[in-house]
Every structure is written in C-alpha cells, then in structure tokens.
C-alpha cells in the first residue's frame, strides 16, 4: 500500500476511529498521535502493512513525556511521526520491540538514560551506562540532571561479568577488549564458544559514550555544531550536514544553489573515503597486505585532497547553518575532481584484481550472511542493508540538497555475505565518483551561504544518507538560539544492533573478517 502524507493521515483516522489524531503536517510529513496502548498496533501497521522503515525513537521531557517514533518510506510516502504522550509522573508504556526488532536498542537506550519502562521488553538493564561503573537510576537524560558536573560513581567492580546466554555443555565465554586492537575503537566482545565454533558474538559497546545529546542541551547552535562534527570523525561532514539541515528547517532558511552543490560534493568525497577505508579493512582482515596497502594509499590521498580543498582532512569547520562557512575555490574543486577521477581508475583496477583472487574470495563468500528478511526486521541501514537486498537510501528515498536532480544508481546485492558487502562498497564508491564528477563540472556560481535569519525557535528533523547509512538529527530550539533537545540517530547504532545476525555460528578465525565487512564505528554508535 502506498499513501502520501494526506492519505496516510486519513487512513489512520478511519482505522483507529476516535483513538488517533492524524494530520498531514507538510508535503513530506504526516503526524499521528495516539494513546500509548495503541502504539504497538499503529507501529506495526506502518512497518509491516505500509512497508515503512523504522527511523528511530525520540524521547522528550518537557512537563509531560513525548515519545516520537519516526518512520519513513519512498518519496511520496514521506515521513511519519507517530507521537505518544505520557503524563510526567507516569513512566510505563508498552514495548514495540517484540513486533519491530529495529526498535530494540532505542527502547533499551531510553530505559537506561531516561528511566522509562517499556513493558514486555525482554532485555533491559546494562546498556549505555555500564552497571559496573554507574550508580543505578541515574537517568542522565532527564531534565533535572546536570550534565556539566561530574557525578558520584560506583567503585569500579573489576569482577563484574556480563551474563552468559549460551548454556550448552562445554560452552564458555571468551572476552575480547575493550583495548584489543589499534585500528578499532574500544568495544568488548563476548564470544560464546563451543569448541572451535563461536555460537554468538555479543558486543558490549558505549566505551566512548560522551553523552553528546546531553551536553548539547542549553548550548547555542554554533557550539552544538562543533559537537555534531565530532560525533564520528570519519563521517563528520555527514552529521554536521544533517544537523544544519534540521536548523535550517526550523529557521526556514534555504541554502543557495552553490552551497547545496558543494555540500553534495563534499558528502560524496567523504563517502568515497569511508568506502575506500572499509575496503582496506576487509583486505587487511583477510591478510591480503598488498591490496590493503593499495587502499590505504588511496585513503591517505583522499584525506590530503580534502585538506587542500577545505582546510581540514576531516572537513571540520566547513558546514554552517545556511550553507558553508567558507567558499571553495572553483579551480580547487576542479583539481580535486581530476584527482578523484584518476583515483577512481586505480580503484576499479583494485576491484578487478580482487575479483580474481580466489583465495581472498574464499574467505568472504558465505561468511557473515544476513538475509533480506533479517535486514528488514532489524532495520539495518546503508551499504550493509543494501548488500542484503534492502535498497532504501535517503538520497533517493527522501532527497535533500538537490540529490533528486542528479543521476546515479543505488546499487544492491542480494547474497548478504561478506563478498556482497565488499562488492557493494566498490559499486557505491564508483557512484560517488560519478556524482563528484558531475557536481564538480557544473558548480553553480553565487553565494555560498544564506543570510542569517532571526533567532528561530521550534523543532525539526534533519537527515542524510551518511557513509554508513541513515543519520537522523532531531533538534528542538528554545528561545535565544538555545538547543533544548538534540537526538542523534546514527547508522552505526542500527548496524551494531544487527551485527549479531552475521556473527552467529561461525568459525573463530572468521570473526575479524565479518567485523570488517560491516564497517562499523563505535564512536558513531556510542555518541
């Protein structure tokens, strides 16, 4: 079934007559408000019958509780904000995780940080805040909690052990981490093994939890932009892009054409660099040193191209509300485009050489399989989802910044194994190069930033297809340009949740390979 926002609202009203309040909010958004006990029903209607993706859960505490469940579909379907409200003193509401697995970690996070209780959720507790470090019932995301001050901690308990799930005879848990390798950020894995085989790999994350959503509160838009750039250094531009779009939506600012085009140019340059690094990681994990070195050379070259073009290797300080903080020189853009084209030729050559390296392919084929059904149910996003046949890409599903005027493909593979993911990274990198070439050759002239608007207030969502998948930023601005709530939904959060689909019943030596093909970021997950 396919409804645009107006029809969506009418359908919801007819179906839950008198129980829901639904309306078309703008040409891309419909809003459905309903009492908490109807939430699971409406959510499964949106997810299963209408085929929308679950974007994330936004909790806001302003007197009462507002829970906003985000869904999005293809083009005309737009966004659905499903809203439930709870009186301030009530903290219980039904869980939707049993119906929609994609919501699992969102509910766990809200339970851990806000102290909400999702009834029927099978597994709450130790999650963002590690039980061996923090006092219970801290609820740091609540309004009353002051995030700027240090808090009293539990005496770290060195003997604390997470619970074991596999209870087979001869099974034991092998802990790895959090400090275990130099290239990956800190994460702790519990590999539950029986003999040589690993039954499941359970990641324990949030070692780099910096409380970004909390420390953003009460700060100015300019200050929070610095935080947005530092959610994940390897996708800094994508996140500041989403942040700026949310603020621009609140203020009613439309960046000038040149800014839109340059943002696309830089966003694709970042995606290209990310994918090249992912390819490097996969080659490295299989021990193919020469191939890994080739990709590593390209990554460093892209970092240098970025620095020459924008003044920073990771594009810090470039995005600004209304466009860019500085214009990029036309001739520098042309030079960067040429360098990227030349690099593209070498990347294709690498792809071709890898495609005939049979011992390499043996390590990747039928390793870390994720089926299309699982990818859908767990709400996987980005290249990982597309390698399993789920091809929703925000650049085409809900276009922004002029992506709808560009010609490019959203590649899709169907096998969902490590090799499919590798191929997908190569194919998407080629599409990014295509966009860079097209955008670089036809840069509009004119201003690079819209004039500042009067200090706006209100709330809005900004979204981008970040290198690792969908990134959604919700900002609520109060008076005087102050951020009241900043919700950051990242692709790594979705894909770390789904990682265990790929890490079930595998041989121990395949673990690094499975991990590399997911190209996950702990920083982007932890925030």
């Amino acid at each position: 079934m396919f409804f645009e926002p107006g029809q969506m609202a009418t359908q919801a009203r007819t179906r839950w007559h008198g129980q829901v309040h639904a309306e078309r909010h703008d040409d891309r958004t419909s809003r459905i408000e309903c009492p908490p006990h109807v939430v699971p029903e409406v959510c499964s209607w949106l997810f299963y019958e209408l085929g929308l993706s679950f974007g994330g859960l936004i909790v806001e505490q302003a007197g009462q509780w507002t829970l906003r469940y985000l869904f999005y579909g293809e083009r005309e379907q737009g966004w659905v904000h499903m809203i439930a409200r709870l009186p301030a003193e009530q903290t219980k509401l039904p869980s939707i995780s049993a119906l929609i697995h994609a919501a699992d970690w969102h509910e766990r996070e809200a339970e851990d940080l806000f102290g909400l209780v999702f009834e029927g959720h099978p597994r709450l507790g130790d999650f963002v805040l590690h039980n061996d470090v923090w006092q219970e019932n801290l609820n740091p995301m609540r309004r009353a909690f002051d995030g700027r001050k240090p808090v009293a901690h539990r005496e770290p308990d060195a003997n604390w052990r997470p619970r074991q799930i596999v209870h087979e005879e001869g099974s034991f848990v092998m802990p790895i981490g959090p400090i275990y390798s130099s290239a990956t950020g800190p994460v702790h894995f519990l590999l539950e093994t029986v003999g040589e085989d690993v039954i499941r790999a359970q990641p324990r994350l949030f070692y780099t939890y910096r409380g970004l959503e909390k420390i953003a509160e009460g700060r100015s838009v300019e200050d929070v932009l610095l935080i947005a750039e530092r959610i994940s250094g390897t996708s800094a531009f994508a996140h500041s892009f989403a942040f700026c779009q949310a603020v621009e939506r609140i203020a009613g600012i439309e960046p000038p054409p040149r800014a839109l085009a340059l943002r696309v140019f830089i966003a694709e340059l970042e995606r290209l660099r990310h994918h090249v690094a992912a390819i490097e990681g996969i080659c490295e994990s299989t021990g193919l040193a020469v191939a890994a070195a080739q990709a590593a050379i390209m990554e460093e070259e892209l970092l240098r191209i970025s620095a020459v073009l924008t003044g920073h290797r990771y594009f810090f300080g470039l995005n600004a509300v209304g466009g860019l903080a500085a214009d990029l020189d036309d001739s520098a853009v042309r030079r960067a485009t040429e360098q990227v084209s030349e690099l593209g030729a070498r990347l294709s050559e690498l792809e071709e050489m890898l495609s005939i390296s049979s011992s390499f392919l043996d390590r990747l084929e039928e390793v870390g399989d994720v089926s299309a059904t699982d990818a859908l149910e767990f709400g996987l996003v980005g290249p990982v989802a597309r390698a399993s046949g789920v091809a929703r890409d925000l650049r085409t599903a809900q276009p922004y910044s002029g992506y709808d005027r560009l010609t490019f493909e959203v590649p899709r593979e169907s096998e969902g194994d490590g090799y499919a993911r590798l191929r997908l990274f190569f194919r998407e990198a080629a599409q990014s190069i295509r966009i860079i070439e097209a955008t670089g050759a036809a840069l509009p002239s004119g201003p690079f930033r819209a004039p500042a608007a009067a200090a706006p207030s209100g709330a809005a969502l900004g979204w981008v297809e970040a290198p690792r998948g969908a990134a959604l930023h919700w900002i609520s601005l109060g008076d005087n340009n102050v951020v009241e709530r900043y919700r950051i939904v990242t692709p790594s959060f979705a894909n770390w949740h789904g990682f265990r689909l790929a890490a079930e019943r595998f041989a121990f030596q395949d673990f690094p390979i499975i991990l590399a093909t997911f190209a996950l970021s702990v920083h982007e997950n932890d925030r």
Partner: protein
Amino acid sequence: MSQWVVKGLRTGVKTTNYPRLPDTAPGLSCGLPATTDLRGEHAQALVARCPTGALSVGRRGIEVDQRRCIHCLRCRRGVNQQLAWEARYEWARVTDKSNRHDNRFGAAFRRSAHILVVDAGDCGACLNEVKQLNNPYYNMHRLGFFLTPTPRHADVMLVVGAVTEHMRLALRKAYDAMPTPKRVVAAGACALFGGVFGPSFTCGGGVAQAVPVDVEVPGNPPPPLAILHGLLVAAGQRQPASSCG
C-alpha cells in the same frame, strides 16, 4: 598471487622522508594558528570567536595556546584580519613531569619501541590518523615503532580521547601493567584538555587526570606526522617544539 607482487612493485615508494627531511606535501597537515601581532578591536573580535579560549591578547599580540585549538577554523573564516597560521606539524611538547625517568628512556629505546594505542573516548578522527601511521605513506615500522595490543609489551602508550568514565579504569590498568621505563603520549585536543566533550558527567578533562603524561601533541585531530613527531620525542629521537605557539 604473483599479480599482487607485481602490483606492489609497480606502486613504488610512497614513504615520506620525515624525519630525515621535512615533508611539505600539500594536505599533510591543516596547520595550527600562531602568535600574531594584532591588537585593538580586530584582535578582540578574533579572540571572541574562539570557542575554547585558545586565543588571548598578550604582550606579543594575539597569543595562542595551541593545546586548546580544536581546528574549528573560526579565526580564519569570515573575518577581516586573519590569524597567522603555521603549516608544519612538529607540534609535540614535553610536559613538566617528563623528567621522571631522567630521560633514560631515550637511550633504552633508540632502536625500537612498542606502542599501545588506547582510544579513551575520542570521535574516531584521532584514531584514524593513528591508523594512517601504518600506511605506506608513513610506514612507522621503518623507524622502529611497532604496535602492540598488550600493555605488558608496550614501552609507549599513545592515548587519544578525553577519557570517558567507561575507559578510565581500563586506561589506568593498562598503564599500571606496562613495564618501566614507560612513556605516555597524549594526542589530540580532547586528550589534552577535554576538547568539546569534557569535562562533563561522562567525560574527563584530558588524559593527565587519569595517568601521568610525558608528551602532548596538539591538533583536532593531529595529522599523522604530528603524532609521529610525538612518538619520536617520547623515544628521545627528536626535539620537542620549542615555543608555545
């Protein structure tokens, strides 16, 4: 497999000549602001733009505390009078505590040093720059630097990030497990003073609050050669940066 051998040979040598010769390739480093002889209104305006208080008006004009620079470039963009900028990368400085080991360290590690990298809660940019040190452009093995995942084998601990509550204990344990003499290099603005993250309820104000730091490398993130300079300083093979900006 022979195709890969050929490929490797055809690629040729990419490796930098640093530290034997300075490297000036474009895009290596985004540089740092430097002390600028600017006074009056313009200077005040520039100082006010800096979100971390890295700039102040002093005897020599605008003085820069490079440790606190987070590369936001706000003192360079949309302003009439720009701050002076130094494009080099030898930024590493030795802290006051550095004489703890009478510099015996330098003699002991002239040949090779094993490095434990600890991500104590960064955004991933610093860690990615550390990762580049292993790529053919920088190839730190040629200088006798090797990465190790085990504190017991480590001579130098290279720490990035402001130190989150979740990493504080792991960092301390790793430090205690290292044999002596040992050195700690803190790299990146977050590791030096907390950066945009700390101090807060979940982030500290830098590595020195958790373990003693010997060498500091400014930058957000510091480019690979700046980190390499920090390691060379820690190993007693290179002079630290002299001035404070």
